[in-house]
């Protein structure tokens, strides 16, 4: 897992899955469609990504198309840098 992916994984575990075994959260675990991130959580994630990686996320990018797995999110962050 790349450093970017790890940073994102740590944030999600801490904020939205307290107490979960980290090994359960893989690069392909569905986050939005799997009920782990609801709409408010997704907004919090976007705020974190913007702050942490100094990127800007457009309104239409804050959704299941772009952010459903750790792998998707890392790819998205890379594309913005």
């Amino acid at each position, binding site marked *: 897992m790349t450093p970017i992916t790890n940073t994102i994984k740590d944030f999600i575990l801490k904020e939205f*899955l307290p*107490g*979960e075994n980290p090994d*359960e959260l893989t690069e392909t675990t569905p986050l939005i469609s799997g009920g782990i991130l609801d*709409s408010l959580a997704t*907004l919090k994630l976007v705020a974190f990504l913007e702050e942490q990686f100094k990127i800007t996320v457009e309104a239409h990018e*804050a*959704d299941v198309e772009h952010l459903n797995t750790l792998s998707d999110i890392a790819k998205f962050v890379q594309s913005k840098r």
Partner: protein
Amino acid sequence: MAAGPLFSTLDDSAARHPDKIAVEEAASADPALAAITFRDLASLSERARDSLRRLGVRPGDRVGLYMRKSIDGVAAIFGILKAGAAYVPVDPGAPPARNAFILNDCSVRTALVERRFEERFRNELEALGPIPSLIILDDVGGGRGLRAALDREDGRDRAPAEPSSGPSPDDLAYILYTSGSTGKPKGVMLSHRNAMSFVDWCSEVFAVTAADRCSSHAPFHFDLSVLDIYLSLKHGATLVLIGEEVGKEPMRLAQIIAERHLSVWYSAPSILSFLTQYGNLDRHDLSALRLVLFAGEVFPVKLLRALQQVLPAPRYFNLYGPTETNVCTYYEIPGRVPDDRTDPYPIGTACSHLRTKVFEPDGAAVPVGQEGELCVTGAGVMQGYWNLPEQTARAFLRDPDGTRWYRTGDIVVEAPDGNYIFMGRRDRMVKRRGYRVELGEIESSLYRHPAIREAAVIALPDAEGGVRIKAFLSCREGKRPSLIELKGFCAANLPAYMIPDLFAFDDALPKTSTDKIDYQRLKELP
């Protein structure tokens, strides 16, 4: 009856303003394809009516609606009403199993289903028994999906056009399913009189005109949609449909409110909070907005204040009422929220088409200033729950002079100024993003997981005046599921707003002296 059957809201406006735009789809890529005039909407609804009749739909039947919000959906609704049937809208975002339960429960004669939902839905329906024939729409948008589906149904020749059925006031117009404490959703039966008496009250208070542009934010299975659709069409206003995905994106929502020059907004308070906190409202010109209506749950005062700071011009109304009565009390926020106010605003006074009264548990009337259960009587009160005679009977009480009152289950107190203050729920139901959530229904769902032995769900207040749902679980020997697996399991069986925020595990859950789960103790745990 007030002004005629529910579909007269469309037909009367089609006669007066045939070329005016009745409905727009806000998120459509191509604006030219995403609007429909009153005349075209009326005529598409008549085609739907005729095809439905040819398929065997008769007055009194139920017809399901399982598609994303669209002009096609609005036309289908009116087609169903004109065939004398009641529409049963289901949540396109809910698990197909739940939707199959609902449409099977009320024995729909047929359902209009969008292709993307068809396969999983059919599988679930087939598991419940013989399925009715379905009308499949390949897509929705602009009414084209419905038109194409009707073309396919009609084949070589169009279904003959017969005048719309004339329902009597107590005939059903729609059935809205809402969370049930036994684990299964229950169908609230609403008649033409229920709907029209409510819409006429709205006309009185909100004075909608043909110059208005009204939001449709709520999905069609949520009773806020009754105000959106029928009030807007009745007055020749333009209804702007905001789809399910966009409806949860505050930045896009703010853009739509501005670009579409919306003058009337109606939603649950949580959406308004989202807009205030994340919508960058100050970047947009929202000067067309004259009315902000909110319903479904308490609007935390500090968030209402923050919204008003960015949006001072509109009139703000707090609307209250369960699905069983639609809105039954209302309160206009008097001017600006003072900086030091912390108490939530009242739910107000009864709408003019209804009467309200506060009762003790034993059915005695309560004196002003004392708490009791809010009960409602009048033209807006439901016909009952579909096929649940006992639950229906329990939902009403008769007072000494024979009047039948609907029991809301909400505890209120009447303030000296005549406004009701909301105190809390009588039972185990909470509001999440404006939706009704029976904590028992979440428990039933959790019990279906093979590893779970006991499940108890409670609601805890959060810092913003809303609720967090916490599930306490005890599991079978050595089989504790991961949080991720549990959330996924819940996502497959429950709508998003019912998935617990927190899970806690223990070997066994605390019990009371009568061996029932001790909810009080669970609430007190750190």
